[in-house]
């Protein structure tokens, strides 16, 4: 009995070691976030006004596993962090909150990019300056919570 437990324990360690050796960041879920960036804030936050104190985060969510769904994003840099999309309808750009989350297809990827899906930062508490990095928490339906660093890019490159 005791010997069996030890055997399992050793096996477990071996498996864990071999997994972490090939993975880079731990990916028990099969999700990998790449191409992450946020646009610098156009206005400094010492302006009292609301307008312009918003920004957006973009990324590519790669999935080696089963289908999942990004259901929430949170950050401490803004009063609200929401999942949005932009669609062209009758020649008009319409931005809307995403209802029900962003689907991440099985063995595929979903891209959040300008003119489409984005994480919107509403009411920034701090200036986002080029070169800064802040943390974003992503909650997936199956994979749970992932925290990623988000680098800030200049308004004009």
């Amino acid at each position, binding site marked *: 009995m005791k010997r069996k437990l030890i055997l399992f324990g050793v096996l477990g360690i071996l498996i864990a070691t071999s997994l972490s050796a090939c993975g880079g960041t731990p990916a028990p879920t099969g999700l990998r976030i790449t191409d992450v960036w946020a646009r610098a804030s156009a206005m*400094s936050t010492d302006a009292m*006004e609301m*307008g312009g104190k918003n920004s957006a985060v973009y990324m590519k969510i790669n999935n080696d596993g089963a289908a999942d769904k990004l259901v929430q994003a949170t950050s401490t840099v803004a009063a*609200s962090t*929401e999942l949005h999309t932009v669609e062209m*309808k009758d020649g008009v750009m319409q931005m809307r909150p995403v209802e029900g989350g962003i689907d991440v297809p099985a063995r595929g990827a979903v891209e959040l990019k300008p003119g489409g899906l*984005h994480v919107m930062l*509403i009411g920034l508490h701090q200036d986002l300056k080029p070169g800064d990095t802040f943390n974003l928490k992503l909650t997936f339906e199956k994979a749970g919570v992932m925290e990623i660093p988000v680098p800030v890019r200049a308004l004009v490159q």
Partner: protein
Amino acid sequence: MAWHSVGAMVLWFVCAAALGGCGAGGGGAPALHGGRLDPPKAAADFTLTDHHGNPFTLSGTRGKIVLLYFGYTACPDVCPLTMSDMAGARADLGADAQDVQIIFVTLDPERDTQAVLEKYVPAFDATNIGLRGTPQEIQTAAAAFGVKYQKKALQSSALGYALDHSAFIYVIDRRGQLRELLPFGTPRQAIADDLKILINEGTAS
């Protein structure tokens, strides 16, 4: 409300865009990328208030090539992307940049006060001009260019409301002729190329 009476105008622009798309490059000269207006048409004129609080009349920019865009500063995606590409294209022109004026007209005068425009608009390019006015003044200016826009309440968003809007860049030459409409997503390089064509035309007609 803002949708009315622009139907014919929009249709005309769409036709112009379609024509511009297929009639390109006859004599081997480089052609503009967007929906070209052929023959060009005098750009509508309007007077609004600039981000310093002074009256600003569009026709006062004669002699410069104008990139005109209508948007709102709370927009985190489409508007800053377009502002960034226009500013980037201008920056790519070197000394010729002085011949180009970028103008941003807010469709959201309620949130986009003069103080907001004063911070937002020059953040992309220090020479940018931001314009606002009463809702009626803005509606008139927008309608003159066939801009469609509408305030849309977003119940489930902290943003409160968004502005649904057409997102063309209106390109006006030195003589005040509206030459083309660049659709959303036109790359910075294409904008810069078109500006070079119009700069090289000089001031002669």
